[in-house]
């Protein structure tokens, strides 16, 4: 996966996002203090927000080129926001199937495999309001995976009051790489949570990228990603 930001600007309340980079990696970790613009960065990729100016490119597709804006429904980018945004009026089964009807899928993972791997079999007919935080996280991730995305965006999957959620978050991000071979961008305020799973680490401060590092263990990570990718095909 290659992501390119060129002269991308987005005015926020206290500062402006100004992003410029070109990275090729299977997994990207984004860290920085809270309020550094990490979530806005994900929202620009998802298309939930529109940059004021600049070019955003994913592989060979232009997501935004100044005024030209590819709407989120055509991006095939799965977004798992921090609040998870599970549909409260649908049960687990209908939540995870919501994006399944997308015509232009960029990845395909069998429904069965997702339900097995994320251990959702027993939850399918449950209403969502009595799910635990960790269960909700699995539902949100399954929903994103089953929409056939080219890329999945994860916002603070490890940050939660519920310690169980940090555990599942770490495990799920690992799963994404090893089992499903779907590229991802993961945001966390805690640097150490990203080193085990991301090839490239980006540091944000005041809306700007202040550092890009290839992870020291990145060779292993890239290998396992490629292996999973081959196994999947």
């Amino acid at each position, binding site marked *: 996966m290659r992501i390119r930001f060129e002269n991308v600007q987005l005015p926020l309340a206290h500062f402006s996002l100004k992003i410029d980079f070109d990275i090729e990696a299977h997994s990207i970790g984004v860290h920085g203090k809270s309020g550094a613009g990490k979530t806005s960065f994900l929202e620009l990729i998802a298309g*939930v927000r529109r940059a004021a100016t600049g070019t955003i490119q994913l592989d060979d597709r232009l997501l935004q080129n100044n005024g030209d804006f590819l709407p989120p429904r055509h991006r095939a980018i799965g977004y798992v926001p921090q*609040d998870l945004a599970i549909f409260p009026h649908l049960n687990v089964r209908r939540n995870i199937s*919501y994006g399944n009807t997308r015509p232009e899928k960029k990845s395909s993972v069998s429904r069965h495999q997702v339900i097995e791997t994320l251990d959702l079999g027993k939850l399918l007919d449950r209403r969502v309001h009595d799910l635990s935080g960790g269960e909700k996280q699995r539902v949100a991730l399954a929903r994103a995976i089953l929409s056939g995305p080219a890329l999945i965006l994860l916002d603070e999957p490890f940050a939660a009051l519920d310690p169980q959620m940090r555990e599942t978050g770490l495990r799920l991000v690992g799963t994404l790489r090893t089992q499903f071979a779907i590229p991802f961008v993961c945001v966390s305020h805690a640097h150490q949570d990203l080193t085990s799973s991301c090839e490239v680490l980006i540091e944000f401060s005041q809306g700007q990228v202040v550092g890009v590092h290839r992870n020291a263990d990145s060779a292993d990570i890239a290998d396992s990603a490629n292996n999973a990718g081959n196994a999947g095909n």
Partner: protein
Amino acid sequence: MFDQWQVIRFTLLVCLGSSLVILPFGMALAWWLAKTTVRWKSIVETIVTLPLVLPPVATGLILLNLFGRRGPLGAAFRAVFGADVVFTWRAVLLATAVMSFPLLVRTARLGFEAVNPRLEQIAETLGASFWRVMFTVTIPLAARGILAGFLLSFARAIGEFGATILVAGNIPGKTTTLSLAIYSLVQLGKDQDAYMLVLIAALLAFGAIFLSEALVQKKAP
């Protein structure tokens, strides 16, 4: 002089009809008011709310002039459908629709405002079109507010008097509604019969408002 059951049947039918006719327009406007950020939004809001505070007779007079045989809209209606509006059941429907529209819009709007926009955004990232998001996320989550607005508009329609009597008259068997019948009966000194209709009107109104309150207050989990 009145067939009371005819009056009740007619009133229920026309009021249900008017609430159903305004429902799609009211929902669209309520949704727009809940989402838009344009500056002239408050002007639209004011116009929509006007029938709620204007004397109903004044609204009736305006409608009479617009939809009368020589009124611009009345003439247009006649040209298209070959029928008159004023002093027919259509006028009753028109008057109740206009008078109850603000209640539908204001209540449904609260329903739409309560929908977390994040859920709509996520639905879009999952590939859903505007209309799919509308029918599978927005409307289901706003349903309580919409239904409450529908019931309130229905209750308001049953109570409509001032605008109706101007545009539809009070023609027994043709345009006489529950409210108009009560007025006629009292004028004729038939208080006993009037009270029977008052009781029915009160029961209908109570039922509709009770249900709509229950819908609004019992928040979805």
